[in-house]
């Protein structure tokens, strides 16, 4: 395992509500993500998965605690720098793809890079490379409405990867896909993790999806309950995740 820390979360606390009626959603989370990690965060509804992801992706601010991303505490950075970090250091994959319907797949993939002032030749080159890798080369000229869900999500993954981010946050990436497309996408993500040394943090409620990760953290009631690490075999890992789910006794979906 690589020793370079990408994200270091210390004592992360998040309260919602006004004074006197506060609910503590995250109750002190400590988590360190190293380079080339593939982490899945699982948990039942209301366990704080989405809140955690929102804070990590700088959309929300924590009540307490620090998050060090690439040597900087992102909880204390001003807005302008935050969007720089979001653009350069973080890649996002959303449940509902969020491709822009106004442009072709190729333009969608190239968008973050082209708006970043990167040279046009490099944009084109990288877009084609990624599209080839994700099996989208024939679809580049199409608009999102002409693509299937799986193709869209793979496109969105390309878009997340194009700026070579330090870490990729995936929010229920398979949530809207059928099982075949889900498997394709997860294979892709795994491949990205293996071949590109990309660091991935995925939030999911689906044990099957989670079994593609290297480590699974189970989040429950605002705290990390346990960590499962993958052995050699994915199937065996899947069974262990299911067992853990059963032992916690809550419905994750």
């Amino acid at each position, binding site marked *: 395992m690589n020793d370079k820390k990408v994200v270091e979360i210390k004592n992360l606390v998040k309260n919602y509500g006004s004074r006197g009626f506060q609910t503590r959603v995250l109750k002190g989370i400590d988590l360190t993500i190293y380079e080339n990690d593939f982490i899945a965060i699982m948990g039942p509804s209301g366990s704080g998965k989405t809140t955690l992801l929102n804070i990590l*992706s700088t*959309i929300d601010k924590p009540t307490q605690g620090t998050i060090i991303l690439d040597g900087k505490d992102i909880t204390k950075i001003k807005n*302008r720098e935050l*969007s*720089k*970090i*979001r*653009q*350069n250091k*973080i890649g*996002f994959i*959303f449940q509902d793809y*969020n491709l*822009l*319907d*106004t*442009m*072709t797949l*190729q*333009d969608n993939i*190239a*968008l*973050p*890079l*082209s*708006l970043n*002032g*990167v040279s*046009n*030749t490099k*944009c*084109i080159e990288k877009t084609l490379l990624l599209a080839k890798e994700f099996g989208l080369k024939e679809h580049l000229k199409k*608009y999102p*409405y002409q693509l299937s869900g799986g193709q869209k999500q793979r496109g969105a993954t390309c*878009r997340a990867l194009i700026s070579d981010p330090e870490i990729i946050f995936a929010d229920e990436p398979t949530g809207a896909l059928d099982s075949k497309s889900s498997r394709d996408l997860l294979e892709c993500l795994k491949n990205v993790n293996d071949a590109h040394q990309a660091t991935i943090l995925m939030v999911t409620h689906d044990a099957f999806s989670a079994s593609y990760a290297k480590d699974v953290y189970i989040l429950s009631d605002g705290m990390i309950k346990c960590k499962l690490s993958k052995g050699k075999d994915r199937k065996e890992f899947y069974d262990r995740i299911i067992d853990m789910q059963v032992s916690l006794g809550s419905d994750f979906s």
Partner: protein
Amino acid sequence: MSMMKLSFLNFKASFKNYLSLIISLSFTVLILLNFQNIIYSDTFDTLGQMNTRNIRIIIDCVTIVLICFMIFFIWYSTNVFLAKRKKEIGIYIFMGLTHSKIGKLYMIETSLIGLTALIIGLIFGIVTSQLFQMILVAVSQISVELHFSWTIKPIIFTVVVYLAIYFIFVIKGYINIVSSSVLDMVTAAKQNEYVKQNKYILLVKAILGITILISGYYMAIKDAGIEVMGNLFIAVVLVIIGVYLLFGGFIPLLFQTLARNKMFLYKHERNLWINNVVFRIKKNYRTYAIVCVLMLCSVTALGSGFAMKNRYEGIVHFRNTYTFQCTSNQADLNEKLRSLIEQDNDIEYGNYLPILNIDTSLIDTLYKNNTYMFVSYSNLKRIAKESNLEFNFPRLKDNEIINVTQLHIMSFANKENITRTIDKKEYKQIAETAIPYLGRFQEKLEFFLVSDDTYQSLKSKGNEIYCYNYKIKDNTNFKASIDELDTIVSETENNYTSYLAVDPSSSDIEWIKIMYSVCIFMFMVFILASGSIIFMKLYNDAFEDKGRYDVLKKLGISKQKLKKSIAHELLFAYLTPFIVMTVSSYFSILALSKVMETNLIFVNIVSVFIIFIVFGLCYSFSIKIYQKNASI
């Protein structure tokens, strides 16, 4: 909950969204009411029957134009209401309401919006009507006494016209709802049919558009004069079709090609805004075309106004020199004419001189339809002295000419030291004068003052006619001499004589001043309308774009970049119609100049500049609103 209550709640909730539409609808009501009020008020009765009749004709024409506007605005507004409501309507259908009930809901709601606009328009119309008349009279520089009067008729007229149009479109919306499928309604809010269009169809449209537009321009400036009105009509039709095809073909083609060229696209914020333009153009190109045509109308209206005013001032300026002016091919009519006039009137002064008409084919000029006359230096000097007019030009050299011309409204070009070629010989124009040496003739014809020797040498190129001018002592008695002068008119091949009598005190043409101010007013209405049409379009597009900008923000695209991209996109929306209008206006004004026989290039420049300022303001305001609506 009752139907009425539900629609009222909907109306209240959406009032803010529709504010811009309600304001524009009220505005059309206000304008129409103000103009109608002029017809029914007795303000202009004091100007005499002839003027009142002409003013009424002008206002009738304006009314037709305003009603067209109203139709357009109501059509546009009800469409926006329909599109916005259709998705929610889809939800009602799922709840089990029947189509016709939902149709009724839409009708009540839209009627509430329409009535609100009507009432606001009427109230402000009544409040501003006196102010409007005051401004109209002040701009026209006519002296009538304004008294505050109000009749119910203009209100009834406005209300009936407005409601009739509104009702038709509401019914249209109702039928649309009743006959559309549930699926249509649910997906109405996010239809993605407007993406790329077939390249070849666009290419054909683009080529057709440019060809038609250019032939329209050509038709407009090909010939001049009242007799080619037919050509001008064809030109107008061709230009309108051309503009439509340009926006429907050429511009989408251009932007699709740009979007396909990734080397170009992946720079700055182009990837965002060029794709947005391509995405929207199929839905929006009609709006751009309409705005373009509207602005063209506005520039032409202003041009006509100034041409009218010019004509009016010309008539006043030139009619005070002589009462009677005759032209004839006979050189010896002076004594006869004098005796004829003196039967009833005393002549204050009179003179006669030969003038030389040279065919335009020998003269280099843009205005081939004008008539060019040449006068010799000594002759003009003589009649100037006889008519007590100032004359202080130095004796001309043989290669020098002076342009004795009509009044120019606003002339900015340097008329001195320009070179004119007449019969292959170059002459230096050393001065220009509008002193009415030749009375009314000077207003219709273009005169050149040349040295006596040059006049003699040109004599063989043209034909010489004689001009007799008389001013009588008692202007008001000019009619008495008319019967005597009629006897001298002849129109045979080798003997022709005609005369022109001027009534200097006539106020028959006061209505031209009204025409002038109405034209200025229409100019402003047209510009405001074009600005607000684009503004409303963008206002609505912004809501549609909110989701997209949310995604972009999540992806970490900085607000600064998004603002830049929006600025570019909106600039396209304002700038393209503006550029097409600017080019087209040059031709329309040139055509108008030819018809009205006056130079209007300055009006063209000023009006384009004013539109530029108005659009600039709309543009910066649009950016602010767009950012707010898309919540950036």
